[in-house]
């Protein structure tokens, strides 16, 4: 709702009284406070942890730190050094909201900048889809082969790579509606036990049978991370849900993981 387009819906609305309902009011863009102007103050709040067990499935969250291989580590450090040298040299600050945009703009203006941009992408790619993470994913898929799992990735390329390597279906924005419905039906019927996806299953899709969420990679958004957890929380019998978060240790991803876990749903989780 606080986004520039959606906020117009509230601003142009004639309704004098409004009631909003949200599972994830927290936003990464710092506009959370605007909700108060657009809708009003929070009048009732029930956290996921309070609903767990009664209205939502019981759940546990497990963060798994995996190491890069030696070659990956060497390349990661080298690429990161190139990228950081450029960022520091240019005086770009990533704690500023416009920091990243500034980096992209400056990177396009020189050869060194373009190299720094490539280095940024490569070090990120190494951290988000390391070979150790994929090996661990194989272990988890085998371990939970009798349950229904959702594998979340940060980008489509990784989702397709997971699909190719582990022979599990994938749903992205490129999946046609007919095939997407068929995959979800088969998942529900148990003909498929896992689905890989990047963002499209984050919200708005009801997959009550899913009990395992494996976050292979993601952004630093609390909202996204809570939504991903929400996919496996639909209560069904004595279902106990589990969310695994695979994080490449001693990389920038550790910080990203800390940021997205700043929510009561993850408080005290491993």
């Amino acid at each position: 709702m606080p986004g520039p387009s959606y906020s117009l819906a509230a601003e142009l609305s004639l309704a004098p009284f409004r009631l909003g309902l949200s599972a994830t009011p927290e936003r990464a863009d710092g506009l959370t406070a605007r909700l108060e102007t657009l809708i009003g103050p929070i009048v009732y709040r029930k956290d996921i942890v309070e609903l767990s067990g009664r209205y939502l499935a019981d759940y546990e969250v497990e963060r798994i730190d995996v190491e890069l291989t030696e070659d990956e580590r060497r390349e990661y450090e080298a690429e990161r050094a190139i990228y950081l040298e450029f960022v520091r040299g240019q005086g770009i600050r990533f704690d500023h909201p416009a920091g990243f945009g500034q980096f992209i703009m400056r990177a396009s203006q020189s050869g060194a900048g373009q190299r720094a941009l490539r280095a940024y992408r490569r070090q990120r790619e190494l951290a988000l889809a390391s070979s150790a993470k994929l090996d661990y994913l194989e272990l988890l898929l085998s371990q939970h082969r009798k349950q229904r799992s959702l594998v979340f990735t940060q980008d489509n390329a990784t989702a397709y790579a997971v699909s190719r390597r582990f022979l599990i279906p994938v749903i992205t924005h490129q999946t046609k509606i007919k095939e997407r419905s068929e995959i979800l039906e088969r998942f529900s019927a148990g003909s498929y036990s896992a689905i890989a996806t990047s963002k499209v299953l984050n919200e708005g899709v009801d997959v009550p049978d899913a009990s395992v969420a494996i976050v292979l990679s993601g952004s630093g958004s609390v909202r996204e991370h809570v939504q991903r957890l929400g996919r496996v929380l639909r209560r069904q019998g004595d279902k106990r849900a589990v969310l695994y978060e695979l994080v490449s240790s001693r990389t920038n991803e550790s910080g990203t993981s800390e940021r997205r876990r700043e929510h009561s749903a993850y408080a005290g989780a491993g």
Partner: protein
Amino acid sequence: MLPPELTRARKREGKLTLSALSSAERARACELSTALIASSRTLVGSDREQVEAAWASLPTSPKERKLLLGLTHLVEQHAEFAAPESVDPESVRRAVFGRAVERRSALADGEHLDRDAVLAEVGAEMGLAPATLEAALYADLRSAQRLQACSLPTPEALVAEYELLQVQSVLLRSVRIEAEVRAARPDAYRELFRKLKFRQLLHRIQTLSPTGYKVTIDGPMSLFGATTKYGLELSLSLPALLACGQLKLKAELRWGKRREKLDFELVNAGVADPSGSSGVRTEVVELLQALHAAKSPWQARLSDELIDLTEEGGAVLVPDIELRSIPMTQPAKPNERPEPAEGSVLIELLGYWSRDAVFRRIEAAEKGLKRKVLFVVSSRLRVSEELLDGVEAAGLYVYKGKINVHALLRKVEGLVSHGHTRHAPAGRAVRLQPGDPERR
């Protein structure tokens, strides 16, 4: 079309300008085009990912990046990508993933899925080698498409297209365009007006004093929601505007994500029309063919006349077809065109144009026209033929679904049998012929 960030546009004090390529930049653009064309030809058969990577890898300085991306965009438009021929990827996925689930659920604790065994098993059932099966798994993804062919122009022509594309991309974001054209050759007007109709653009034509025309066109952003199709039609009409010669174009834009209101001006950019062709609407061609096929005492041809009603406060009518009764009056000199005979009627096909356009014509016809004109209108525009009853120089033929040539010819006969117009005729009939010094 190019996104705003890839155009050579600059904003300044509420105005948007396009910076033209300098001679050094044009030479560099030709070099890059040569390299792009050469690499595209060698990459026929490669997948999209490889082709795009090769295009992006051409060495450029950061300042040339935008130029390379713009030229690459054009080369991509000329390239033909298609999914590789394979068994239906969806059925391959269904079979492979289904089998993988079966094999995985049968695993003992600590065991891992034997991926190669699954592919070999399903491949054998489908009569495919495992590698072929694997390639077919996501053969329908965009990145897997293969470059089939590319019919690329010369590097110089590609650069000319790039320059034209700049203007087209800007006008795609226009609300309203006002173009003052002064053509060097009279039939350029005809080609322009025909093209505007062919592209079904919402436009109005007025004469300028002492020569030329002012064409006002509604831009894509004036519509309730900017439509790609309309924007594309507008872009395709631009070469005809530029081909007129002298051109002064003003456009009101909504630029960028924020739809910023900006003014754009273009004065005789000297950009050549790479296609150089003018179009005739399909329905006009079809009607001409039907008229030729109908056994009637009328000879049909594309009209080369304009009916200028601007002095009466109207616009310029651009009839599509001229029907002449046979025999016609012969010209006084052997090389001259025959003058309109008594039995000569102009036909304008309004098709699904706006209702307003029909009423503007009705109003003009009621004042009297110098030439006999039959307006052919779709019943979807909800107008009645009776609106022009009693008006001798003009008639309305309203058709439902498809034009009936015989009904149309009966209307033409009726118009001619009225004889001379009773009212003082309005409007100047202008015949545009190649070689005429200017329109009269």
